[in-house]
């Protein structure tokens, strides 16, 4: 059997137990495991700052999944917006409320015993749906995406694009207004 660069045969002895893992699948499994493990760490860590650091790792893993889906622009946006902006924002909020971190208060509620079966039930339903549905789709070769995204944002999706900018403006104004210190009715 000639050596193929893109497929590594595991368990090659015995014809009935041969399954091939391509390099793509190996990298998907590695990235998916990293994403899943750090996501579990995000929701279970005792120290909320540690779970924020694992959240960064989860976002990086999702960016890797985007790259595997050949969504190059979205991977860059994921790194810039999520890791660069949202994580820093959450870090600021954590630092501003740092009295709670220092007190070593318990970070999880007692209702996790109820939450775990509910979550597992939703997971079983979703996985069953994914497995049983005959999707039957094949990925076609894809090129760079940035040009197509830019063109359709400026033509077909121009109205939602402008609305999104208005939403961002409203959110910025609202965030400033909410977080501003109110000095008018509180003399202390």
């Amino acid at each position, binding site marked *: 059997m000639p050596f193929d660069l893109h497929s590594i045969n595991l368990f090659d002895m015995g014809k009935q137990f041969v399954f091939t893992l391509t390099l*793509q699948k190996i990298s*998907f499994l590695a990235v998916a495991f990293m*994403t*899943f493990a750090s*996501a*579990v760490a*995000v*929701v279970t860590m005792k120290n909320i700052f540690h*779970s*924020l650091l694992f*959240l960064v790792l989860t*976002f990086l893993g*999702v960016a890797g999944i*985007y790259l*595997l*889906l*050949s*969504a190059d622009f*979205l991977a860059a*946006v994921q790194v810039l917006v*999520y890791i660069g*902006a*949202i994580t820093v*924002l*959450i870090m600021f*909020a*954590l630092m501003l*409320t740092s*009295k*709670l971190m220092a007190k070593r208060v*318990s*970070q999880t*509620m007692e209702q*996790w015993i109820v939450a775990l079966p*509910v*979550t597992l039930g939703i*997971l079983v339903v*979703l*996985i069953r749906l*994914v*497995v049983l549905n005959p*999707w039957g*789709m*094949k*990925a*076609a*070769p894809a090129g760079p*995406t940035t040009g197509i*995204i830019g063109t*359709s*944002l400026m033509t077909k999706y121009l109205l939602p694009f402008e609305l*999104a900018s208005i*939403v*961002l403006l*409203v*959110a*910025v104004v609202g965030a*400033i207004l*909410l*977080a501003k210190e109110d000095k008018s009715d509180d003399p202390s």
Partner: protein
Amino acid sequence: MIPLEWYLALAAVLFCTGIFGVLTRRNAIGILMGIELMLNAANINLVAFARYMHPTILTGHIFAIFVITIAAAEAAVGLAIIISIYRNIELINVDKINVMKW
């Protein structure tokens, strides 16, 4: 080629992890982190379907960009609310904040 089901399964697992975080976290910032996980799972689904159905039209990518935009706005407003609550009552544990309940 990676089957579509693998991406969908990963997104389902990530979504359920986010649900678990939202249900069990006591800190409001932890709940926001769980919401971010769920939004990321939805984005993986959108991009995977865009890749496997119409690789040249990319509607899913556009929707994912809008989801990222809304997530950024939601994080900003949510954290502002949390900081405002913290400034008023000195704690952000959601099982203690019940002044609007009765």
